[in-house]
């Protein structure tokens, strides 16, 4: 076995940033460690240093601030799944968190790690993308804000430089009457998504007043189905409108074909899952209305 990396678990973010500055690409950050440790054990990566974020304060938690929900990057998937505020205000994200396969991974895995890893078929990234989240990214040079639609750049790649770390996500709290849902298709419930569809939906008097649709698993990066979204804007809520949106989303996707599913199959799943996710969101909104 190759030499084990040195292990650093600093108690201040400044130390993390200094270590990244010093080691560059030879250092790897540990968030939940749920993908990293596997890659390490399989010899897919051979960093000389691990920088563990576990003891850095201020990276965990959900907080409402100035019309936005601020979610610390080290907040666990389990928290997103169970936190009452997330469930009430951002059901799309809570459902995506619950869809992450095994319970042990949800207990340890973090929203920051999951997003920065950008694995194809990860569930939280399309939810964050649909919700117009912004990532706060820190380095020794300072801080920058990155909208999620600029965050994912390629297959397992993001805009993050080796010296940078995501510290939090900020998500605008959707207005009253906004609903959301996340639907995933996988061969088994614990697997990564072959296709995952995250939607945020606002309707008024039988018309769509806004639909945000993000799709994961289909291509190298999660993407917003902008044409499908545009087709729904101010459309009357009908089977036809939903079906058209599904077809447009399938058309504007650039799926990968792999051992799990072909390009054509992924397109078909998008066509089916987009209307289904929109209906799930609508049903949930109607349920909430009914309960009032």
């Amino acid at each position, binding site marked *: 076995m190759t030499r084990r990396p040195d*292990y650093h678990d600093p108690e201040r973010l400044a130390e993390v940033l200094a270590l990244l500055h010093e080691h560059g690409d030879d250092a790897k950050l*540990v968030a939940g460690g*749920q993908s990293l440790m596997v890659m390490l054990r399989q010899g897919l990566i051979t960093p000389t240093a*691990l920088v563990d974020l576990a003891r850095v304060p201020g990276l965990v938690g959900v907080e409402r601030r100035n019309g936005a929900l601020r979610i610390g990057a080290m907040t666990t998937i389990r928290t997103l799944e169970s936190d009452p505020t997330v469930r009430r205000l951002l059901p799309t994200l809570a459902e995506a968190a619950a869809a992450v396969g*095994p319970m*042990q991974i949800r*207990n340890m895995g973090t929203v920051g790690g999951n997003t920065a890893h950008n694995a194809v078929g990860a569930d939280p990234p399309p939810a964050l993308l649909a919700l117009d989240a912004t990532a706060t990214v820190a380095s020794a040079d300072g801080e920058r804000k990155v909208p999620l639609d600029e965050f994912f750049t390629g297959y397992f790649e993001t805009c993050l430089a080796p010296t940078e770390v995501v510290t939090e996500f900020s998500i605008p709290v959707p207005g009253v009457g906004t609903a959301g849902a996340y639907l995933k298709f996988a061969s088994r419930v614990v697997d990564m998504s072959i296709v995952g569809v995250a939607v945020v939906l606002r309707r008024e008097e039988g018309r769509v007043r806004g639909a945000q649709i993000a799709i994961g698993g289909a291509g190298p990066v999660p993407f917003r189905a902008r044409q499908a979204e545009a087709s729904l804007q101010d459309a009357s809520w009908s089977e036809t409108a939903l079906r058209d949106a599904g077809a447009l989303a399938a058309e504007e996707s650039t799926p990968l074909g792999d051992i799990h599913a072909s390009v054509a199959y992924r397109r078909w799943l998008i066509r089916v899952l987009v209307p289904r996710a929109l209906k799930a969101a609508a049903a949930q909104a109607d349920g909430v209305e009914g309960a009032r």
Partner: protein
Amino acid sequence: MRRTVAFTLNGTAVTAEVDPTQPLLEVLRDQLGLLGARRGCETAYCGACTVLVGGLAVRSCIFLAGRAGGREITTIEGLAHDGELDALQAAFITHGALECGYCIPGMILLTKSALTTMTQPTEADIRRVLSSNLCRCTGYVKMIEAVKAVATSTGEEARRG
């Protein structure tokens, strides 16, 4: 780059000299001699290595030993109290919920962790929980029955208060 970590293991304070980047599973099995956490796939796929850290199920094959410091860790060896089996252990026996047995410590600890947050889980809930771990014998049906029995009786106790 070794360091000493001190943690609570099955209720007892222990220390171990570890490489902080090695998996907790290796520390438990190879240094501390507890073989209940099983070496299965070693790539976080099968769940046979599941242990509880602070009451939460984690996969010890990918849990950094360096993170064990100060934590409360429970393995299957720590589940019985004063010679009395945990309700889940007893139920697994009563329901014959094991074939070769290799995955069972992981299954029980996984379920133990899940039941702390679920009140009156449905069969679908239980299936979703058990889907986190693999049983190569495919003996899930009896496990579902065993967990259901414990979840129901726990629920009844809670309701009786």
